[in-house]
């Protein structure tokens, strides 16, 4: 393979990562890391460095549209970022003291169980009443969004903010430790615990993952893990894919996006369980 072919191939694969990531509120690491290591024979260190860049690129590229369209819930995002950034720092601090293999197995299992839980609640009506939550009332987290697919403005109420905060701390910690899974855990926490409409969950997760990743990107950059030759086509491709994906999310059916998320969640769970098993 010539360097030009490598650059073009990494670019095209990253477009797919950015597209899927922007629709589902994920960073695209699930596609970028295997694509770089298995197909393009990049070592895992540079692949993780490029994947951090891919998370930030997906986040900023997609959130530019979601924030403007009022699909992301800014107040929920800012409130939860307290926990994700604190978690990310704790995770980075703990890395080296905890065996990643055990964490991969634990969180692979958590994600697989969460996917099953999401399947059971698939028919849930997003306008169903939710338990009252004083934190959400006080911080005025409740909001509404416009769904271009149904042509309706949907009002929603946020619940279990305290539980959401704890889950976000874990999500931040896991991404700081393992470099993967932060977006998936954020979407899960907002969907299953805080009961946000699914599109709002993915759009809000997209808005947040850039900040969590930026907290660790500085470390990766200084350590020399972000190789410009590899990260350049990844960043460019992911941005292109995210810009395209963010214009599609509004127009597709929520249940379909949610179904797609469950499938990807099971793939992430399998990948985490495999990495835990392989490095045990």
């Amino acid at each position, binding site marked *: 393979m010539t360097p030009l072919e490598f650059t073009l191939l990494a670019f095209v694969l990253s477009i797919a990562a950015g597209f899927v990531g922007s629709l589902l509120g994920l960073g695209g690491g699930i596609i970028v890391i295997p694509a770089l290591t298995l197909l393009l024979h990049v070592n895992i260190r540079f692949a993780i460095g490029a994947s951090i860049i891919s998370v930030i690129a997906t986040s900023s590229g997609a959130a530019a549209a979601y924030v403007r369209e009022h699909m992301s819930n800014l107040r929920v995002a800012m409130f939860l970022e307290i926990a994700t950034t604190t978690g990310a720092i704790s995770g980075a601090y703990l890395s080296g003291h905890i065996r990643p293999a055990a964490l991969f197995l634990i969180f692979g299992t958590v994600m697989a169980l969460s996917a099953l839980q999401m399947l059971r609640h698939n028919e849930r009506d997003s306008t169903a009443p939710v338990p009252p939550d004083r934190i959400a009332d006080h911080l005025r987290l409740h909001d509404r969004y416009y769904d271009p697919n149904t042509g309706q403005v949907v009002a929603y109420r946020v619940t279990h903010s305290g539980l959401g905060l704890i889950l976000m701390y874990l999500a931040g910690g896991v991404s700081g430790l393992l470099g993967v899974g932060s977006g998936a855990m954020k979407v899960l926490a907002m969907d299953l615990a805080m009961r946000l409409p699914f599109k709002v969950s993915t759009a809000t997760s997209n808005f947040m993952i850039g900040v969590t990743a930026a907290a660790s990107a500085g470390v990766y950059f200084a350590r020399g893990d972000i190789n410009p*030759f590899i990260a350049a086509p990844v960043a460019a491709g992911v941005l292109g894919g995210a810009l395209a994906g963010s214009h599609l999310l509004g127009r597709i059916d929520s249940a379909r996006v949610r179904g797609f998320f469950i499938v990807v969640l099971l793939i992430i769970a399998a990948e985490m369980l495999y990495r835990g098993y392989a490095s045990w």
Partner: protein
Amino acid sequence: MVNVPPNHPLAIDPHSPVHKVEIMLSMILRTGVIASLAIIVAGTIVRFAHHHDYLDSRTQLEDLRTSQSFPHSLKAVIDGVRQDRSDAIVAVGLLLLIVTPVIRVAVSIVAFAYQRDFTFVVLTAFVLGMLILSFLLGRAGG
């Protein structure tokens, strides 16, 4: 791109302070993304312009894929840009991409202060503090 039809009864008011903040944050993200993309593409073009053999030689890839000789400190990046090094130009774009979310958080503090929402000023300032702390810890540890 606001998709809400203007005649919709529940249309989100474009003149509301909340929506003004959203448009501003969206602009910051978009500007950061487009500027970093332009710099990254420019750096990549410079790389291939300097090395015509990258277009057809199959012997260079292994070195590029595993090389550790790219700049990864602020000083090395600045020196590299002065010497017209393509790695350093790409690194400027990547750094701009990394700081874009941080700038977004900083501007949010000002926006919440403008809305006199002091609970969220404190929350967002805490987030910015944690981000700065992580960069400082990263420099100390890295």
